[in-house]
């Protein structure tokens, strides 16, 4: 069975090389909000207010961090396994559904219980969590199916 929309296997490794630095920069951002001078740049903004195009000054630390995490996580999540087959596709689908549920349960709880600036942080982290939940659940399920083989022997 052909699995569509997946990247070649080698993208998984590239993904980790982007994702891990991204996560480290992200954690530093949550603690210190660093704004290193050399990352000050003039950027093209589509929406300072919507569809008013302009060039603005901005420190791109957080933009780089977010891109590293998201692109890295997509590469990790959606690269073909070395032995991608129909059962692995099934694990993939199950994990994606699971991750979507968990992600939106978190959002729903945040809508009900978290207010003001706290809510902003939840939504900010929520950009990444669906991918991260998927990666954890999917790899855990793969690992479990591999372990089962060892028990059989």
């Amino acid at each position, binding site marked *: *069975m052909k699995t569509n929309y997946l990247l070649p296997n080698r993208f998984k490794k590239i993904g980790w090389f982007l994702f891990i630095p991204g996560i480290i920069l992200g954690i530093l951002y949550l603690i210190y909000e660093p704004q290193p001078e050399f990352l000050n740049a003039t950027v093209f903004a589509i929406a300072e207010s919507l569809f008013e195009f302009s060039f603005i000054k901005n420190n791109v630390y957080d933009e780089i961090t977010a891109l590293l995490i998201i692109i890295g996580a997509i590469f990790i999540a959606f690269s073909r396994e070395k032995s991608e*087959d129909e*059962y*692995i596709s099934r694990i993939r689908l199950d994990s994606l559904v699971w991750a979507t549920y968990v992600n939106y349960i978190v959002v729903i709880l945040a809508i009900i219980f978290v207010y003001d600036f706290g809510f902003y942080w939840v939504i900010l982290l929520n950009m990444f969590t669906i991918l991260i939940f998927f990666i954890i659940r999917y790899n855990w399920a*793969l690992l479990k199916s591999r372990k089962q083989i060892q028990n*059989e022997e």
Partner: protein
Amino acid sequence: MKNNIKVERAKNNITQAQLAELVKVSRQTINAIELGKYNLSTILALKIAHVFNQSLHDVFELEESDWRS
């Protein structure tokens, strides 16, 4: 769906790994099918039956519960 892949493997003296290789899937997949944890595709079922030189019905069998889901 019941299957007797394990029995057929024993008859033909084929390991899970060898069967996986013959039908071009991972070993986890063969293992999950044998344990009844995964309902395989028609193509894979036909391939497995072919490897054992059997008809589909000799390897795979519907169960009562399959009519309910």
